[in-house]
């Protein structure tokens, strides 16, 4: 449910790192909490994102939520398909449902994120509430 090779945020985004490029999406848990996703709003390539700040929004039939960036950097690529087919996020959150690719400014920021095991504990704690 939470792939080992990813890093996670407390607000349920994941990042897959390849050298200094990070691919970002939302976790299976986030998808379940949101229920039916109807719309996703992403930034344009070339823009800046800041760790912990909103880079876009995701809208479900229940609510509109912010998408928070796990790291700071420049947006290199955006998954344009999601604007037409947001259901891809529900079907495949860790692969085809990726949202943006970021050129990571400071790799040490990754150390503040959780690994799969820690994130699993975090989710279990959230579910208790």
């Amino acid at each position: 449910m939470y792939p080992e090779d990813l890093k996670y945020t407390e607000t349920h985004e994941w990042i897959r790192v390849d050298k200094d490029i990070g691919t970002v999406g939302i976790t299976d848990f986030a998808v379940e909490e949101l229920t039916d996703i109807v719309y996703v709003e992403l930034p344009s390539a070339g823009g800046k994102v800041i760790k912990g700040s909103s880079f876009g929004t995701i809208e479900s039939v229940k609510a509109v939520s912010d998408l928070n960036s796990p790291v700071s950097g420049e947006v290199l690529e955006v998954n344009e398909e999601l604007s037409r087919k947001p259901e891809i996020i529900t079907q495949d959150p860790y692969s085809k449902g990726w949202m943006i690719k970021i050129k990571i400014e400071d790799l040490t920021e990754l150390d503040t994120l959780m690994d799969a095991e820690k994130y699993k504990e975090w989710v279990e704690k959230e579910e208790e509430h």
Partner: protein
Amino acid sequence: MIPYIPNTKEDQKRMLEEIGVESIDDLFESIPKNLWLKTENNLPSSLSEMELINKMRELSKKNVSLDEYVSFLGAGSYDHFIPAVVNHLSARSEFYTSYTPYQAEASQGTLQAIYEYQSLISQLFKMDVSNASLYDGATALAEAVILAHNVNHRQKVLLAKTIHPEYRQVITTYIEKTLGLSVVEIGYKDGITDLAKLRERIDEDTSCVVVQNPNFFGCLEEVNEIEEIAHKSGSLYIVSVDPVSLGLLIPPGEYNADVAVGEGQALGNHLNFGGPYLGIFTCKKEFLRKMPGRIVGETTDKKGERGFVLALQTREQHIRREKATSNICTNHNLNALRAAVYLTALGEEGLRKVANLCLQKGHYAARRICQIPGFELVFTGPFFKEFSVKCPISPDKINKLLWESKIIGGFDLGKFYPELEDSLLLCVTEKRTREEIDKLILSLEKMI
């Protein structure tokens, strides 16, 4: 009168005891003492119902009525004819007393009426989507500017100086302090936005270019040229229009406006002492999720039958709190209903006739006024139902003299434009008869 909300000494004592304070004054402890009213409220004693009615009737005699006075005053509020069917339908208690339609199952009539309103406005403006309405033209325009900033995150707002001066004040109030955006006003030349100045001031940080058409002086802006300039720098193009003018003029959707708003009072709403009015708000489909206010959507119920619901509520304040698209998640429903009934009663042909009559009568009045020695049009370009006239005597004095003949004169442009201190903005709607216009001419002639 009968105290409909009884609040006896005994009640007060029990309530104070319950919450554990000594006196009513204790409830206001947190307000600094120097702000407290030191004297007693100087209010007269209460009246009986009959005395009250007489009193109110006396007071209301201080108002003048448009049944008695003839108005040539526009400048944002317009005296158009309202067919009886508008009053009749909008005063039905099903509409008149209904609460906000949160419960779709109990509000199909109201929801359908809003849906019809949205459809009519989208058609009239030739824009993709209309919301259920906002408070008035000024706040609708301010919300449009906020939308532009939310779309492109740019910081500069270019406002044509030919936009209603009070609308510009509202925009500045809305955005300068709270969002920190900077407002730059673009001057005019011969009554319309100076395109050279616009080209000079627009840049990569310009969030939007905002114009009004017909503008405050009544003149028609070069809407196509402005569109080109705005979009070339990637700015949004926002236009405020008079919906009645769309009976004749090209609608904003056809000159590629991104957001088009307007004051909808002219559509079947009385002058209402300046409010409540009707904020029309339309935009391109791509900005739908940034649009302020509520939207009614069509859907099917579980039996597969057509029905209506509030749509896209997740953007709104009662769900998204401080991150909502706007602070407004209600609308001016009765005013919108009146606009919908008005537009339906007139139809395309009817609205075209109204607009054409405004145009013809306006031009007749302008021509006649300019034949009086000393009077001339301030600007040379085309206009719709309003026009600016340079006067040989002070506009204030003209208005006072006209008032004596039960004519409400024009708007004194010097109030907001010092360079136009000798000019009057006059308005002629389809309601003005030839006799009324001739009476105005005669009164002006007598002043010279």
